[in-house]
């Protein structure tokens, strides 16, 4: 994807919005290279949430007084912000959840239990985060459907030629695929996969957690049926996520969570469901967090998604270049043009936890582990990797400190 924007990101200036980045860690300046795990929050987001609590707070969708109306307006305003962000047709297609995991479980349960059975095939990928893998594996088991995966090659890219072989094994009903892989940063050809799924009569369920913070998503152009993402990786508070789904699918689906707000009427004999999207929002929703998410989207839009993508591409290329200094370091994943701002690697003879621990002594925060992608780790033949990930506030000198730390790692274990 060519990045063509005259607007350049001023990461140094943006950092002033993120108070935590100025706090030392263990006495060293913080170099936060773990944004794919969770991003830091700008003041604008924290202020928006606080202001909402201070001026507009009461429960939503029920209070008959002014504060309740303001609270509802804030929550529904956030829904409109998300709709515009995704280019969805209507806010009825925007369901707020507590995170992407809940969103994906919602689809697996509410759609899967009623639409899957023996002879059906549920397809995930070897690159999936557990949250778009385990629910499908589980619901396939519950319904008697077969569960299969699209394999990945040694560079962590999907082998799409396997798709037609899979189709021979049963009626493909679901294709669950991540937009951008969280362990290696692989950008999957989601449009192509969704097109294939549609030819099979299957739905496509996209985990967009690592895409939404960094690139513009157009759900109408994507061709998928459900798209889930979480707020906390995109400058928003924890506890808020989004499930976009095609209205006609949502309308035919049974609800997932049952309780308050998702009903139209309840009697001993019969309960009927509320209209979309409330049908899928049982209980008091995380509405102050939704307001925070809307503020985060506004913040990212102001920075510019094209500029964010270009900034991260520069950092990625710089990092890959500098890691070339270290022959002991093996970088996993596809070439820069097909990956997001994520660098997962192995240091020969050193466990990722030791790498991360030694980097932490220098104030450099990275993730070490299986990143909730154990099938991918198995495919690569490693128990874990160390991962550095970038965001709009990441600076090249943080990459320098990261690389210096890796020199210390290799010296320590030489």
């Amino acid at each position: 994807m060519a990045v063509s924007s005259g607007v350049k990101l001023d990461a140094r200036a943006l950092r002033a919005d993120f108070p935590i980045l100025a706090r030392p860690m263990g006495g060293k300046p913080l170099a936060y290279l773990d944004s794919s795990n969770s991003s830091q929050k700008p003041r604008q987001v924290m202020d928006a949430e606080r202001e909402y609590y201070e001026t507009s707070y009461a429960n939503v969708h029920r209070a008959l007084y002014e504060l309740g109306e303001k609270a509802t307006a804030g929550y529904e305003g956030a829904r409109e912000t998300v709709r515009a962000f995704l280019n969805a047709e209507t806010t009825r297609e925007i369901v707020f959840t507590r995170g992407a995991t809940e969103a994906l479980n919602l689809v697996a349960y509410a759609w899967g239990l009623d639409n899957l059975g023996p002879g059906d095939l549920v397809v995930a990928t070897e690159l999936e985060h557990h949250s778009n893998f385990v629910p499908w594996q589980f619901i396939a088991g519950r319904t008697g459907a077969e569960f299969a995966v699209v394999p990945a090659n040694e560079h962590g890219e999907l082998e799409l030629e396997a798709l037609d072989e899979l189709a021979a094994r049963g009626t493909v009903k679901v294709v669950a695929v991540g937009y951008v892989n969280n362990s290696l940063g692989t950008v999957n050809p989601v449009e192509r996969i969704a097109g294939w799924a549609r030819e099979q009569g299957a739905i496509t369920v996209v985990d967009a957690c690592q895409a939404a913070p960094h690139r513009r998503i157009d759900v109408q152009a994507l061709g998928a049926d459900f798209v889930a993402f979480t707020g906390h990786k995109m400058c928003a508070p924890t506890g808020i996520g989004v499930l976009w789904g095609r209205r006609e699918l949502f309308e035919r689906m049974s609800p997932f969570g049952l309780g308050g707000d998702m009903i139209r009427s309840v009697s001993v004999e019969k309960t009927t469901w509320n209209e979309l999207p409330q049908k899928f929002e049982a209980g008091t929703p995380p509405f102050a967090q939704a307001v925070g998410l809307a503020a985060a989207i506004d913040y990212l839009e102001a920075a510019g998604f094209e500029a964010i993508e270009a900034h991260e591409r520069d950092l990625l290329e710089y990092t890959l270049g500098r890691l070339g200094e270290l022959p002991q370091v093996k970088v996993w994943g596809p070439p820069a043009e097909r990956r997001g701002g994520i660098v997962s690697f192995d240091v020969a003879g050193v466990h990722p936890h030791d790498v991360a621990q030694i980097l932490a002594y220098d104030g450099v925060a990275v993730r070490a582990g299986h990143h909730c992608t154990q099938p991918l780790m198995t495919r690569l033949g490693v128990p874990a990797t160390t991962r550095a990930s970038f965001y709009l506030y990441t600076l090249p000198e943080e990459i320098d400190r990261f690389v210096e730390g890796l020199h210390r790692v290799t010296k320590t274990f030489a």
Partner: protein
Amino acid sequence: MNEFDAMYREVILDHYKNPRGHGEIEDADAQAEGQNPLCGDEVAIYVEFGPDGETIEDVKFRGRGCAISQAATSMLTEMVKGRSATEVASLPRDELLDEVGIPLTPIRLKCALLGLGVLKVALHKAKGTPLPEEWAGVDELQIS
């Protein structure tokens, strides 16, 4: 001594790079394996008893994982060789931690204690005795 030098002190790195008692014992009298799911550390331990069926005559391990988990298990094999199985089965964990001798965060504590947990399970299984209730703080380890 700063934190870094304290944790990655020479003796730890030496045990990690040159693990003592590395390998397997065929037809071991006691054996078990375990992992730390958080880190992906894995350890399997094999024990051979002496003619009295009680003295730990030989102990070996294989595993992969972080320096702390592998070095601590290596130190453990040196520590328990020649001692009685009954005694080692209830070895206080501080005895190993003192030997490891580095400051450990709660996460790394699990790494350091993985080998000891596996060894105790191996011994209790061989003796048919119940595993003592002393695993608070290491309950995420999967040992069988």
